[in-house]
């Protein structure tokens, strides 16, 4: 059963993602900030990480950098989920090393498609 780690500081948003993903049969773990995320990854490597860019403390870009710079985690698929909607954001995210980009508010269909694409090719 594939494990997905959700990194998101708002409880409502975490519950929304958890509901949708568990519906699809995935196992879900949550982290409320970057440090918690890193510690969860070290405890158990997830198959996919869905990460908000806007986090308290270290932001999504910063956490991604650490993931990509840590050999044990470097190849993990990390999808940015963000309410930033400025043009160029998608390019900025992808060139920073994220595997994918989902903009909030997310269409449930699009979220499901993206996750399935990455975990059930």
């Amino acid at each position, binding site marked *: 059963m594939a494990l997905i780690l959700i990194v998101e500081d*708002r409880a*409502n*948003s975490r*519950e*929304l993602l958890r*509901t*949708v993903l568990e*519906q699809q049969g995935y196992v879900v773990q949550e982290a409320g900030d970057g440090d918690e995320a890193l510690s969860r990854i070290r405890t158990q490597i997830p198959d996919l990480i869905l990460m908000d860019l*806007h986090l308290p403390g270290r932001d999504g870009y910063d956490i991604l950098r650490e993931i990509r710079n840590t050999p044990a985690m470097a190849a993990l698929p990390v999808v940015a989920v963000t*309410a*930033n*909607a*400025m*043009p160029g954001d998608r390019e900025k995210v992808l060139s920073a090393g994220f595997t994918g980009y989902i903009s*909030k*508010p*997310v*269409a*449930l269909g699009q979220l499901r498609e993206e996750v399935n694409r990455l975990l059930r090719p």
Partner: protein
Amino acid sequence: MTDSPHPKPGNNPAEQENGSAPAKGVESPNEIFGEKRFQQLLEAAPDAILEVDVQGRIVLVNETAEKMFGYSRTELYALNVDDLVPAAMRHGHKQRRASYTSAPQMRPMGSGLDLMAQRKDGSQFAVEISLSPNRVNDVVRVVAVVRDISSRKLAENKLRAVQELFTAELEAKNALLEARNRDVEQANRLKSEFLASMSHELRTPLHTVIGFSELLMEEVEGPLNPKQKRFMSHILQDSRHLLQLINEVLDISKIESGRLELQAGTFEFASCLQEVMAGIQQQAASKNIRLENKTVFLDPVYADRLRLKEILYNLLSNAVKFTPDGGSVWVESQILDHALEISVCDTGVGIAEAEQENIFEKFYQVGSTTKGVREGTGLGLPITRKLVELHGGTIRLTSRPGQGSRFTFSLPLLGPPGL
């Protein structure tokens, strides 16, 4: 035979060998070129004329020279020309005289220099001097014509003072403008940052509002009764409306503050239009509206693909909204004046002429759509027009109530810059 007013060449005994005709005047032929005549000319000259030998001794003067320098001619004949130069410049003057006599030619003296002369009473004044060599029985003399330019210098100095004043004022004003520019740039930066964070803040809670509404509508957590379904559907519809509003307000705010930048590229227009029409399909089908692509343009265009889709989507969406069930919406194309003209046409309710100017204004909504409600945000057309204009095109409307509408926008057919 009448007397001619001018003496004919060859007929006049006073004509000289160089062929010049004597001036019409009161002198007798002998008087015209006599010594008295030339003496009078010399004395009457408006500039001072001095003839000087190689040592600088003054050997000939005219009356103007006497008046200008304040010496009688007797006094002048006893002077060296260096004495007419202010003391500080005398040494240099002596040297330049020597270099002149070694290679004398007719020319101004001291080009580019401010020349000063000195009167008998010691007062100094600005002058302009021209020099010319004169051979008298194998002896070289120098003829100097001196013009007093003090009043001209005064005028020049006054003008320069005024110019300097203006320049100083201009510099002060420029400095002020630059400071203001910096303030404006700062304000713009703050505004951009505000817009970006506002957009983020507004979209974040909508994410869960829309998400949970959709989840409920999917009935995975349990069925909804018809009334609950309807209530949820209202919530969902208005949430999406709110999202659209946020996006459009952000858009129009960027466009108006000149912060929207087109990301232009070359792409196939036909496939871009296809995508938009596919997106409108469901809306049209739900009202049994026939949606047709009658365009014939198959070439690539250079434009912002995302924004072009936005333009097409806005126009098509409006067409469907304002056309009653069973009607038609179609798209035509034509080339006119090096531009691609696209027309989105419908058999809808039409727009009264009085309203046609207003519909491009922000938040203006024409009456109601065919559902009897005001749909949309009222920002679609203003944004569409701005996007068309950013591409260098124009948009116009042909419509009459009850006779459908035709929105036509043009897209200049340009290549990418540098081509």
